[in-house]
């Protein structure tokens, strides 16, 4: 085990964390502000991946594909809010879970009807295909480095919007006292639609960035959704800061666990036992972490109020 390898794995963990953050940010915003549990967040991730892949193929331009994918997911998200979710804000969480689970089934079928059941091809432009040299001769894919940069930029932008802009101020005010904000003449319904669309676009961004790495197929959103929930539980539900910290912690812990747990165990217990225990433990690691966080700080690391 060399330091170069550890550094590379940390980078991998950061990249995975950034991807989780983009998903978690939208989910936690919607939960924190509108008190809505949205299981269909993974569907918006899938919609983003499909729209971007299809638009890239149609236009022949990667950047145009990305732009159309983002805009498309924003529109789909707002439409879902207006048509299906608006009536659910006053209902309890179980009703929301049931309704948004229905949305998952709806979107998976819709995608299968439009694009078929076969995984979709999703490509990268040549300028994102190479590798950058790290020290000690190891290399890192340019695309993954780009994902890290984009993710961190979005995190900074999100921090600015939520804490420094008028929109963010209204959103925070709406979260603490909905009636008062609307009494002051703010169209809270429109505000919610915008926030939901914004969260959807973040999920779409995660999805379209995941497309060239993962398989673009119906049901792809559910595969990442569980980890995203782990992230927001660790970070503190409703906190964007918590989502960022939680995502990076989960990303790094999961990656390092997968990479180094087995060799590490091998130095302590018999190799054959490490062979069996290593992978099993590595796949449990983030859930163990979540259990510990819940025991020590039940509201998460960065709980709101």
């Amino acid at each position, binding site marked *: 085990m060399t330091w170069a*390898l550890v550094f590379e794995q940390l980078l*991998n963990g950061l990249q*995975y964390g950034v991807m989780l953050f983009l998903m978690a940010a939208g989910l936690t915003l919607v939960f924190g502000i509108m008190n809505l549990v949205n299981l269909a967040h993974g569907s918006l991730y899938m919609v983003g991946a499909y729209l971007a892949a299809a638009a890239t193929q149609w236009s022949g331009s990667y950047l145009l594909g990305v732009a159309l994918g983002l805009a498309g997911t924003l529109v789909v998200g707002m439409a879902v809010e207006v048509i299906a979710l608006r009536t659910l804000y006053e209902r309890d969480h179980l009703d929301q879970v049931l309704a948004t689970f229905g949305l998952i089934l709806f979107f998976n079928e819709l995608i299968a009807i439009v694009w078929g059941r076969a*995984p979709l091809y999703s490509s990268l432009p040549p300028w994102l295909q*190479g*590798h950058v040299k790290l020290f000690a001769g190891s290399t890192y894919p340019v695309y993954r480095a780009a994902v890290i940069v984009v993710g961190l930029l979005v995190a900074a932008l999100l921090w600015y919007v939520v804490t420094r802009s008028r929109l963010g101020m209204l959103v925070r005010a709406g979260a603490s006292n909905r009636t008062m904000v609307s009494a002051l003449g703010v169209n809270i319904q429109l505000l919610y639609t915008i926030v939901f669309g914004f969260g959807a676009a973040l999920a779409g961004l995660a999805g379209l960035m995941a497309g060239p*790495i993962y398989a673009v*197929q119906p049901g792809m959103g559910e595969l990442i959704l569980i980890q995203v929930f782990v992230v927001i539980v660790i970070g503190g539900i409703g906190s964007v800061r918590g989502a960022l910290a939680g995502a990076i912690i989960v990303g790094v812990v999961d990656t390092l666990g997968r990479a180094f747990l087995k060799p590490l165990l091998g130095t302590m217990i018999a190799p054959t036992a490490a062979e069996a225990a290593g992978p099993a433990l590595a796949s449990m690691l983030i859930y163990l972490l979540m259990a510990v966080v819940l025991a020590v700080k039940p509201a998460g690391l960065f709980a709101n109020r």
Partner: protein
Amino acid sequence: MIAAALAFAPAAMAQQHKLKIGFITTLSGPPAIIGKHMKDSVEVALEHLGGKVGGLETEVIYGDDQFKPDVGVQLAEEMLKKDQVDFVAGIIWSNVMMAVVPVVTGAGKIMVGANAGASPLAGSQCNELYFSTSWNNDQSPEAMGKYLQDKGINDLYVLAPNYQAGKDMVAGLKRYYKGRIVDEVYTKFQQQDYQAEISQLRSKNPKAVFAFYPGGMGIQFVKQYVQAGLRDQIPLYTVFTVDETTLPALKEAAIGQYEARFWSPDIKIPASQKYVADFRKKFGYTPSFYGAQSYDAIMLIDSAVRATQGNLKDTRALVKAMRKADFDSIRGRFTFNVNHHPIQDFYLLQAVKSSGPDGAEMRIVQKAFEKHKDAYSQDCKMKW
């Protein structure tokens, strides 16, 4: 009254001469693409037979097992009791197959497996009424192991998902590959991101990589392997990872990939060429081995029903006729081993650039095994 009875009589007669096949596969969720290849292949087989399997008017009842053993059992029971099917065929997954076979054979009907290759069914739990037109799970990795061994490759890095089939594949590989294994890595089932494993792999600098990643996992692993720039550095040998169900999503990322399999759409066998050509014409895409096996399943049933002159009541005669496997298979001459699993050749395939819509296609490079039998047939006590 008499008129009514007369009117019903011919209908009843016709009913007796109708053949019903229950075909179970997965038609929902991500694996539904495999089910689609299988179902479309059954349609091609029916078309080749003029809609008459074994010369009888045929109805195929499709069932979606949703990737769940309990749903598979429910479907089989419904097909046997309500639809009164004469044969049950299909099934992608070993765990579904293990649950469904006792239901079908218990009802005295014949089950024709068109994909799942659970080793108990080839060995100690082999059954008079169970036939397979596919393979046993570990035969493809055996073929790959044989090839790697013959090629004298040392320092192999092994990756597979951490579940039973993953372990079985590695066991099959090791049965024929005796070189050094640098590391054996088992990843979480349905894992999406392999960058951590790929970084570890590169740091160990192996001579070759063997992997088993079916379905979406395969698309992810291969894409990420290529993006990491390893395609030209360390050759990647896989089983059940790159095929015609995943090629459309991989395209140029698959080029150079090695696979081991019993069949490829480019195989120079007349029955196979006819099947592939007609399949492409009818559905506009290239069939995978999942489809080819399903086509063979229908052709096998056809041969047996034909040989018994459509007498579906005589199961013993049907089994006897099935054992002869007297039909034009996509493999050429089809022979059953004593355990009702095919004895067949295995090939090394490579994905090469093509002018087709996928930009890449599988080609046979060389034969890895001639008339290969699975490792479990000696545990099967069946007498022919």
